[in-house]
């Protein structure tokens, strides 16, 4: 089996995996980082979003070997010790979740959105940018509010 090596949440990791291993499988099953979820497995829902070299990627739709040498950040890697990331804190503050299944992907999408679009995000931009993240519980109202607040808090 081929060997893959990458940096995940600041730690160097290496493992022998089957070539067909998806990045999300590698994260969840090899590294036991189960905060990254699998919803649809077909690039629709965004529950599996992680950052690969600073860009949001759907980890169900890339092979682990495609992240060879890359810097991967998962939801487990965004907080600073016991202090939540400002975007996580905004989701908590605005009650932007119900069951929580989509939340890790939503937060990784939100941070990527701020990285690309800046700290002042209007509702229209946020809703457009959330095209690839599905929530089946709450509707998106509080999620949009949380992202706007989290974006400002990330300044």
């Amino acid at each position, binding site marked *: 089996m081929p060997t893959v090596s990458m940096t995940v949440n600041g730690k160097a990791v290496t493992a022998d995996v089957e070539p067909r291993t998806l990045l999300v499988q590698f994260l969840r099953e090899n590294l036991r980082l189960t905060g990254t979820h699998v919803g649809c497995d077909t690039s629709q829902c965004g529950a599996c979003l992680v950052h690969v070299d600073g860009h*949001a990627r759907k980890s169900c739709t890339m092979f682990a070997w495609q992240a060879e040498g890359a810097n991967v950040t998962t939801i487990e890697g965004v907080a600073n010790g016991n202090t939540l990331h400002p975007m996580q804190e905004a989701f908590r503050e605005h009650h932007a979740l119900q069951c929580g299944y989509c939340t890790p992907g939503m937060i990784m999408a939100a941070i990527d959105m701020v990285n690309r679009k800046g700290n002042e995000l209007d509702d229209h931009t946020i809703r457009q940018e959330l095209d690839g993240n599905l929530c089946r519980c709450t509707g998106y109202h509080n999620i949009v509010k949380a992202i706007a607040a989290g974006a400002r808090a990330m300044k």
Partner: protein
Amino acid sequence: MTKHDDVANSPVLKEHLPALASVPAQIGDPHVRQAGTIGGSIANNDPNADYPAACLGLGATIVTSKRKIPADEFFTGMFSTALEPDEIITRVSFPIAKKAAYQKFRHPASGFALVGVFVSKRGPDIRVAVTGAGSNGVFRVTAFEEALKKRFSPKSIEGIAVPADGLNSDIHANAEYRAHLIGVMAKRALAAATARGGGED
């Protein structure tokens, strides 16, 4: 290959061929557009994908590891292309058309084209390419192209019916509905192309 986001945000394309830059902006979602590429899209040749319409509608040349293939010969049927098993796309070359536009009737759930029409006029070369409708994948509407030779305007194709034969019927739309949509989307595309490219040329 070039990612969807890079095509959509290319300053060169936005200036010289905005019709092409508009195509990937409607593909998938922001994260998909940061990952998917034009080469991947046309090699797959999904019958509802956008880029095959752009390639055929502009008369692109698909450059591979072995040869150059005109778009007219590249798309050979549903999910089929002229690519051989050991051949890979390395580049896609597009001619600049002053008058060109893409209009897509987006499936509300998947974002794929229920029907998408790409039109262009480059001197005497007039093209109308349709995706999403044909049971054999992307195709050109020669009846529209002939009519547009007189005048490149939405009015020129009024009253010309596209036959429903050979079009897809599924739970989203039957062949007659798709045939009608081709005319509607073609007229919208022609209006956008003439607005973008100026009057007669």
